């Protein structure tokens, strides 16, 4: 850490590195790269002798295609997945859903507005009046268990014909099929730390150094990260992957584009007891519930029912929830205890847990999709649709589109230049439903930057008019979306002080803040309601390989020391960030689930644009495959 901002590539160019030549190198394995490799592999399998698939770096061999994934296992991802599966089904027309563990077809979809049963939620006067009116006429409307079931599901949310999936199991299933052909190699546990540049073109990937200390300096068993040179680098490393971030920094963003809209998605996978899911239970496999209104109005939530009495339950805490003390895990615990859910979940057992940041910017945050030697796919390329609440299928489809383009260019013996990739991949994408839906969703969430009710109105407007009408908003950088601590609000300050005292006694900051604000204590049962540390161990199975550097770095210690908000600590999904001596947070990478949340939950900026917190490539993270 130092007082200067250094946004340059942090990997040392002075260390001698091994190099390797491949034809195509992919950063990150998720649905986008899964779609890319599936399409490419299939084309090769249909005619392995096709000269288009001859390697340029290993004569006589097929294309050398490698994918480097940071997580320990291909199945160690997290997402709350209900998807229309349009692109996925197009790739697998004969898909037998039963082949994918935890997958099931969507059977029924409902939307609930959740009232506050405990009285701690912060609601505007308008909302409280609305809640009161709902309670008064509750018996006449569908209000039961403090929840109002909307009489219809908005068309823009519909996942009819879609699938409820575990992303971990889906990735694992896709990966197994890919690797059985031997065409592409997917290497887990291998984070890629930076792109390689030469003469303005991307020429490959640099892998992370191993055998280094926390600060990245060579230690026992040092092995410099290899430079993997490739004609084409496919960047599918998600919304906050190191390669994508480096490209955004090096190339800038298209005019007017910025990634300023985020949410933290956190979920549990819960196993229900045998007697909880009878034939009359609404929790039949394929049931999908969307919720809003609780534990705070700004927090959207979901419940999806898998086969075998498994349910995924989760919430999204958005960047436009400006409370500096915002947090997630404790809110999730209150969410599952809402009467509408708890009557089904109360005797359940936590099987898995995880968290991930979602890039909600959509087209607002779309980077340059192509350049000389690279193309971007998936969530990091702005493909997630926040009107429909859909990302996996969009990511998959962008991967398919890139693969089709690569095949076209290989057959035409054309290089992977910006012009050629724009004429093929970018064109395909712009002409597809991905772009149409992205335009409809573009401004759907603008209204939330002016308040919750305004946001709902804006979302409905955009949804019902396919984006032709929407509310305008000026969306500030993420650090400005966090409201400063209100130093004149005596009540707030008293709560904050009480929380800080509790922290000195060993209580986590977010936990202490929530209790100070009147949220009831969690009645731990050791099975479903467990501490956040236990969730790391019992749920996420979080771990990190030794010998890697810290991947969360604070740019300017002075800003941390002067920060009152410490939102990064309250929002940390794994409690990997804690209050350190002298006010600079301490980072323990063994607890980090790589959700990326710290990056957009910093209340300060060294230059007005970037967060004071850098999220780099690192090892480890979630280790559960049931998310």
């Amino acid at each position, binding site marked *: 850490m130092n007082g200067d901002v250094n946004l340059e590539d942090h990997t040392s160019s002075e260390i001698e590195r091994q190099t390797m030549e491949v034809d195509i190198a992919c950063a990150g394995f998720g649905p986008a790269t899964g779609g890319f490799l599936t399409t490419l592999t299939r084309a090769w399998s249909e005619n392995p002798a096709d000269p288009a698939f001859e390697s340029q770096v290993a004569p006589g061999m097929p294309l050398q295609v490698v994918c480097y994934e940071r997580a320990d296992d291909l199945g160690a991802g997290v997402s709350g997945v209900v998807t229309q599966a349009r692109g996925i089904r197009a790739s697998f027309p004969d898909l037998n859903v039963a082949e994918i563990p935890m997958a099931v077809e969507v059977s029924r979809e409902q939307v609930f507005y959740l009232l506050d049963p405990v009285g701690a939620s912060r609601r505007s006067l308008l909302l409280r009046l609305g809640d009161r009116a709902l309670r008064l006429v509750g018996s006449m409307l569908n209000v039961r268990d403090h929840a109002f079931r909307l009489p219809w599901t908005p068309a823009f949310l519909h996942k009819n014909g879609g699938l409820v999936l575990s992303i971990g199991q889906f990735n694992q299933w896709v990966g197994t099929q890919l690797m059985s052909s031997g065409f592409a*190699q997917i290497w887990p546990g291998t984070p890629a730390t930076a792109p390689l540049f030469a003469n303005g073109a991307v020429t490959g990937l640099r892998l992370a150094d191993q055998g280094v200390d926390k600060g990245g300096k060579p230690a*026992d068993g040092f092995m410099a990260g*290899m430079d993997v040179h490739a004609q084409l680098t496919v960047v599918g490393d998600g919304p906050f992957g190191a390669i994508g971030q480096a490209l955004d920094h090096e190339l800038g963003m298209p005019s007017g584009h910025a990634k300023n809209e985020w949410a933290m998605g956190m979920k549990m996978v819960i196993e229900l007891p045998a007697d909880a899911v009878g034939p009359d239970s609404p929790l039949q496999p394929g049931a999908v519930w969307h919720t809003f209104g609780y534990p705070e109005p700004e927090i959207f939530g979901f419940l999806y029912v898998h086969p075998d009495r498994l349910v995924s339950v989760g919430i999204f805490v958005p960047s436009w929830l400006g409370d500096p003390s915002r947090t997630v895990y404790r809110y999730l615990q209150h969410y599952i205890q809402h009467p509408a859910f708890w009557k089904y979940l109360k005797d359940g057992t936590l099987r898995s847990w995880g968290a991930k940041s979602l890039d909600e910017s959509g087209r607002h945050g779309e980077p340059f999709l192509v350049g000389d030697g690279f193309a971007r796919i998936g969530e990091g390329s702005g493909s997630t649709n926040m009107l429909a609440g859909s990302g996996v299928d969009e990511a998959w489809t962008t991967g398919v589109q890139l693969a089709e383009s690569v095949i076209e260019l290989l057959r035409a013996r054309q290089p992977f230049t910006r012009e050629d990739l724009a004429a093929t991949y970018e064109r395909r994408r712009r002409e597809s439903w991905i772009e149409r839906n992205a335009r409809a969703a573009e401004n759907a969430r603008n209204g939330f930057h002016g308040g919750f009710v305004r946001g709902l109105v804006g979302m409905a407007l955009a949804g019902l008019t396919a984006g032709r009408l929407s509310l305008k908003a000026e969306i500030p950088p993420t650090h400005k979306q966090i409201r400063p601590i209100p130093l004149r609000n005596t009540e707030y300050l008293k709560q904050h002080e009480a929380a800080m005292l509790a922290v000195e006694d060993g209580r986590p900051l977010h936990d202490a803040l929530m209790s100070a604000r009147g949220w009831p204590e969690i009645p731990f049962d050791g099975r479903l309601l467990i*501490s956040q540390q236990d969730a790391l161990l019992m749920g996420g199975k979080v771990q990190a390989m030794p010998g890697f550097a810290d991947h969360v770095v604070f740019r300017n210690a002075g800003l941390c020391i002067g920060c009152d908000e410490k939102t990064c600590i309250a929002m940390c999904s794994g409690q990997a960030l804690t209050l350190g001596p002298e006010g600079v947070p301490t980072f323990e990478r063994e607890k980090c689930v790589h959700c990326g949340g710290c990056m957009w939950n910093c209340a300060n900026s060294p230059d007005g644009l970037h967060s004071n917190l850098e999220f780099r490539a690192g090892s480890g993270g979630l280790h559960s495959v*049931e998310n």
Partner: protein
Amino acid sequence: MNLHIVVCAGLVPDPLQTLEPVVGPNGPGLKNEMLLPAVLDPWAASALYEAANLAAKNPGCKVWLVSLGPKAKLQQVMMTIAQKVSFELVPIDGPIGGFSDAQATATVIAGAIATIAGLDRAKLLLFGGWESATRGAGVTLQIIGERLGITDQFMGVDQIAMRDDGSFEVLERVEGGRHQVSICEGAPAVLGWATGNLPEPRNNPQVGMANMRTIMPALQKARPTTIAANGLSYVSVNLPSQQRTTRVVKDMAADDIAREVVEWIGAEK
């Protein structure tokens, strides 16, 4: 010296996942076992790393990895292991499960080893894990050795040191946290490894790419195998009971933590 080191390493469900015993029509197993990721049996993995270390220090040595498991699981595990050390894979496409009969399992594995082309029994060191992270009987490696006619067997090994005359010194774990030192005249011998002393090797993409050139064809050629039940049946299966108490502390000395844990264990009835 040109040793031929054959490492027997089974697959086990990743011990970090949620593991729950169930009893099905085929006997005891784990709930949703095929859904869970697999890892190389941890002490067998140590044996593999020791084998690779030995081969690196003694040019001319060759390392084979013999592993029994469903092909898809073997493939998944190879993507992690193959980045770490060089070896030639001898896959056996068969069921995994810690409730299989040890004799039947050992017969299949010994049979596969006996057919390895170019394997010289006079140079053979048979490595494996001393104990398994599965519900294994702890005797499979010994039986493999016996079926191959190898009578010099060492179990609970943490170290091997080769000598110039082809003999070697072995450290085996015994009671009281101590090791027994043995000198063996030479190969063939069986070594069931404990943890050894080596750190897990770093991931090396070049090693991975080189390994894949032989691993993928071997996997594709692996033939399905069944493991005979041999009349084995289980009366009951239970998880050991566990109690979890989590307390987060900072800056507490290791000795103090150890003292507190010992007191807690002593207080539990």
